[in-house]
Each structure stands twice: as C-alpha cells, then as structure tokens.
C-alpha cells in the first residue's frame, strides 16, 4: 500500500494543499476507500494535520472510510427518485442487506451507499449495483435484484 501511495504522491508537489482532493480521489479509486494510515501520510506529504485531511474528506459524499463490500449498492436519493419513494427502497435495502447506509456488512459481502443524484432522473427511481444501473425499479424488482446478488455471493 505504501508503494502505491508513493506513486500517487509523486505526481503532486509536496507541501501544496491544492493536491489534497485529487490525491484522495486517486487513493479511493485504487483502494475503494480511504485507509486511515494513508491519510496521515498524505498529511505529512502536504504539510497538513491528519485531522484536517480527514475533515476535508468527511465533507464529501464521494469518500468512504471503510472498504467496499463485494457487491456495492448505490441508491439514488435525488429529488426525482425521492418522489418515486426511494426512501422506502433505502430502508428495504438496509433491512435485507443488514447494513446501514454508508456502511459495509461485517462479512464484507455488501456495502450500501446513498448518492445525491445518479444523473438519470428520467429513469427514477434508480438503483446502481456495482457498475450497473437499474432504471425504473419497482419494489418487486428490487426484491429480485437483492435475492439474485445474495445468491451470487453465497
């Protein structure tokens, strides 16, 4: 992990805090989340206190502090999806996957995330599983999707 970090950091000038967000994005892209030990290293490199690095990262929805599950669910809670009842979808997902929004299940099989908008309002309500979008999801379809991924990971 250290080598990976060194490679990312080498692209940005040391001590310049402008590099913080792109560095964090790259770490997340490679690791799927922001590991604690890397954040303090980033802080050292940019001459920022570790708490400030974490504070900035915690501001943005895009950053995660726990590893993703094997299957990653994203439920859209934008206005259009909300009007189609996505809050019910969210509670159903939490119940079925036994994981709270923003979290990862203990066996690391599932993770669930709320996103503010997936940019596909015409297809509301939208669910994203790993890289695939599921447009116009109905409650029955949701149950089916969850069931199929549960079977897949067993």
């Amino acid at each position: 992990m250290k080598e990976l970090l060194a490679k990312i950091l080498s692209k940005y000038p040391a001590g310049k805090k402008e590099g913080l967000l792109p560095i964090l994005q790259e770490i997340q892209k490679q690791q799927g989340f922001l590991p604690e030990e890397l954040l303090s290293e980033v802080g050292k490199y940019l001459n920022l206190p570790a708490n400030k690095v974490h504070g900035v990262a915690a501001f943005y929805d895009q950053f995660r502090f726990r590893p993703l599950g094997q299957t990653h669910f994203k439920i859209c809670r934008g206005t259009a999806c909300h009007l189609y009842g996505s809050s019910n979808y969210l509670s159903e997902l939490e119940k079925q996957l036994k994981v709270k929004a923003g979290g990862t299940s203990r066996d690391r099989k599932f993770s669930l995330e709320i996103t503010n908008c997936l940019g596909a309002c015409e297809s509301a309500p939208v669910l994203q599983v790993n890289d695939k979008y599921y447009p116009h999801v109905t409650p029955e379809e949701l149950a089916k999707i969850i069931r199929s991924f549960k079977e897949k990971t067993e």
Partner: protein
Amino acid sequence: MQFNIEINNQQYSAKRGETIKNVLDRIGIHVPTLCYMNGFSPTGGCRMCIVEVEGIGELVPSCSHLVTEWMKIKTHSPRVLKSRKVLVELLLASHPDDCLYCERSGNCGLQDLAAEMNIKERKYQGRRQKIQIDNACPSIVRDPAKCVLCGRCIRVCDEMIGVSAIDVIGRGTDSRIGTSYNKGLNTQTCVKCGQCIMVCPTAALSEKSNFHAVIEALGNPELFPVVQFSPTVPASIAEDFNIKASKDILNLLRAALKKIGFRQVFDASMAADLLIMEEAAGFIERLNKGDNLPMFTSCCPSWVSFVAESKPTFLPFLSTTCSPQQIMGRLIKNYIASSAGQKSENVFVVSVMPCTAKKYEADRDRMKDGSSRNVDAVITTRELVKMIRLLGIDFANLEPEPSDTAFGMRSSSGNLFGISGGHLEGLIRTINHMMTGQEMSTIKISELRGLKNKKEVKVKVGKTLLNVVAVSGLANAKTLVEDIESRRETYQIVEVMACPNGCINGGGQKLGSDEKNLKSRMKALYDVDDEEMIKVAHKNPIITDLYDKFLAKPGSERNKELLHVSRLKSATT
C-alpha cells in the same frame, strides 16, 4: 480614512477597514455573539451578530462585514431581534434539556443567549445527534451532544496552539466537531492544554474531573492527604472570591486547603526552585560541551507532549528535569513522607494546577515499581473553587495561616514560573550565580516581562553572551522551532509555554478570564518578586538544606532518578 456612519439613527465616525462590530464595540453597543473571538479571524458562521444595513437585502454579520461611508445600520430592529431569536431557538432545538445537571449551568454562552432573547419555551423539536462522549483522554472530555458547532475550539487549536487535533467532520445537518476516524482525543495530536475548554460556550468541552477522587481520599482515614499548588493559583482564587490579590492571599489559600482537610500544604514554587538548580547545572554542562543547544525548557507538559508527538528529533534538546509538579510529588513520596513519619503509599498527593495537561502528566509519571503515582490526583483551579464552595468554606473571612511545613520556603524565582518568561528569568539568575559566583547586578530582566508572545534578550553571564527567548502559545513555538531548524535563529535557551502568556492563562483557569484578569495575575507574580526577601533559587534555605542532606550536588548522576527523566524512555513526564 475617517468617515461617518449612522447607527440606530445616531452618527458615529468610523475608519476604513473596520468591521461593523469593531465600531459597535467602541461605542458600546452590545450585539450577541457565539463564534466570534477577539483576536481571531472572524468566520461569520453563527450569524448571531447580524444587523440590518439599509440597502442590503439580507441581514449581515457585523463581525465580518466592513463599514462603508454613510452606511445606515440598525442593530436591534424588530427584524434583527426576530431573526436572532429564531437562530437561538434552532440551536436549542437539538440541545439536551439538562441545564439543571450541566457542568456549565450559570456559566454557559447558550444559556445566556436564550435568556437574552427571552426564550421561554422549546419552539422546535430537532433531531438529537447520538454521539458518544469522548472521555478516553486523561485531561479533556468531549460531549458532542452539547456542541453548538460554533467552531471556536477548532480555531484556537489551529491558530493559537497549532496542533489541529479537532475539526469539523461531515456536512450539513450531519456535521459535528470531532477527531479523525472518530477516535478518542487521546489518540490525536492533542496536547491537552485545555484552551479549547476556555473558549467553548457550552459543556461540549470540559476537563476530566478528579473532584470525587480527591473528596473520597480526604474522607479515607488510612490516607494522609497532602496538597501542592501552582504559583498562579492564589491570584486566580482571589478573583473567584472577589478579594484583592494581596500578600495575604497565599496564607488564605493555605488556610482554605487545611480546612478542606489536607494535612500538609506545599507551594510548588519550591519544587520550581529545585528545578532551576538542576536545570542550571544541566545547562552549564551543555554549554561547556557545546552539545544539545539550544536547551528547551520542559516544565510545560503540553509542550513536551508536542515535541514527543510531532518533533521527536528535538527530544534531546529538552531539559531533562521533571516539571515542578512531578518533582514535588517525587520529593513528597520519597523523602518528605518518611520525615513526617508516613509510609509513602499512604500519602495521597493532590496538586492544584491552572492546567489540564498536568492531569495527563501526573498520569504518566509512575513510581519506580510502575504501580503507584507520584502525584495521585490533579485538580484545576476551577475544581478547587468548587471544592471550597462545596465544603462551605468562607474563603474571604478565613484566618490566614502561615506555612507550617518545613518545605514552605520558596524563592520568588520559583514563583515566577506562572508566567511566560518567568521560568527563564529565574533560571538565568541562578545560571549567572553558578557560572560567576556572583549575583546579577540587576536581578530583574524586564525584557522577559509583560504580556507578549515572544520575549527575547541577550544576557551577559561572565564573559558569555547568552541569547535567550521565551515564547508562549504553542503555534508560536512551532514557528520558532522551524526557524531554529533552518538556522535562521540561534539561541542558547528557549522557554516554551503552550498557553499564551503561560500558566496565568492556563486551560484550568477560571472560565471567561479576560485580559484584565491576566494583568492582575501577572502583577501578583511580579509583586511577589518585588516584595519577597529570597529572590533566587540558590538562596532558598530549603534547597540548600536538601542538597546538603538528601541530594548530591546539582546536576549529578545521583539526582537523576529523583529529579530527571529520560526523554527517550518516557518522553512525556
């Protein structure tokens, strides 16, 4: 450039570059504030200080809005008052209703605002955040449920102390003030100085109390409770009980501590004298060898903790002496106890400090076997005031009690430790005596006095010219350390205190202390130096007696175990 502005239909003159609040302060119009702190950059976050300005649609925060010519301002118009009230009501919406049981009841910024806005009922019911109390740190407790997100603690930690141990986590309604990865404050870069407590308007930050441990020990017939107090305590206590910080206050404090039930009362200034002797000897050795210079003082636990955490390469430059608190504790347990006919394990040493970091320091410094502590409990000046009130002691009308212990003598040098620059002043007096065999011609070093963050002076000791500096406010020390690292500055001795102006402004002092308080505490310490007979540590008869009977000569190997620490083994005592 001067121009006129109109405030509440009256004309006043203002200068370009001033904020509206600057002008209001000058002409004596009060607007409520929450996030505003004098001397810090305004954030305009709490909106409590909003005023109405003609021609601007929305209300503007007076703390950050600059005045312009012919501006017409209304500070208490119905619209302003209504908005302020709603703001406070919204803050109360998610605040616990436990004022009766709250640490800060009667001394709370939020309570004051609610009273000022005449709020009589809970108008909004907000979502309560369920975040655990963080009490893993031996000095500071964080209760995020009581936090109003004003951000004052963050700015103090960033700008004044420079360690950024806390920050805003999350966003919008989820935002809270916390530590990275939600870990306890004890795992962070926090140096336990307690300055965040001093600026917190509510009970979201408070000291970890040892109040009950002390009360319990006082009631335990098997224990022999003794107490030591820091030189700044007498003057601070005087403020709380509205009496003048005169000479008598020291004896009043002794009387109060005796009334509380302590069997013996020690002035930690005496331990500071001993520290000066050891540190002076240690410094002269470094000077002769020419290594590990500049020597940094090590009496401030927050500073020592900062070096250990963030600048470990500077550890060898720290003086090896323990802090006065720990020297006193070690002396009591190892020497004084037996001379009072007590077993050291039965002696319960309490110290009263203007400091929260001392709690942490005492926690780290254990006796040789590692099980028992040299100082058993540390209470802050605030906790002592509570204790005096709880036990119904009429402080102002006590019969002053002179020192009765054999260790009551102190020099005014040891007493000066309470203020930034004072430690250095006392130390130089003794270094001068050790190096030249003579006293300094003028004993007062006025360049090291006053309320300034950095005080430096070149002193001639014999044929040697010493360049010394006293710096306070840890952020300033950080800058100085960087300057020394890059060899922009060369000093022989550097005194560091984490709190601005030193212990008189410590994190365990009275909440809401202002500059007037600081000045009177400072004056009290300087007055002692003017009035007392013994002004140098090496003339304190107790100290000479200790060296004759119990200790080897200053700086020698035999004293190491009792008065020094190995910075590599235990960096924080």
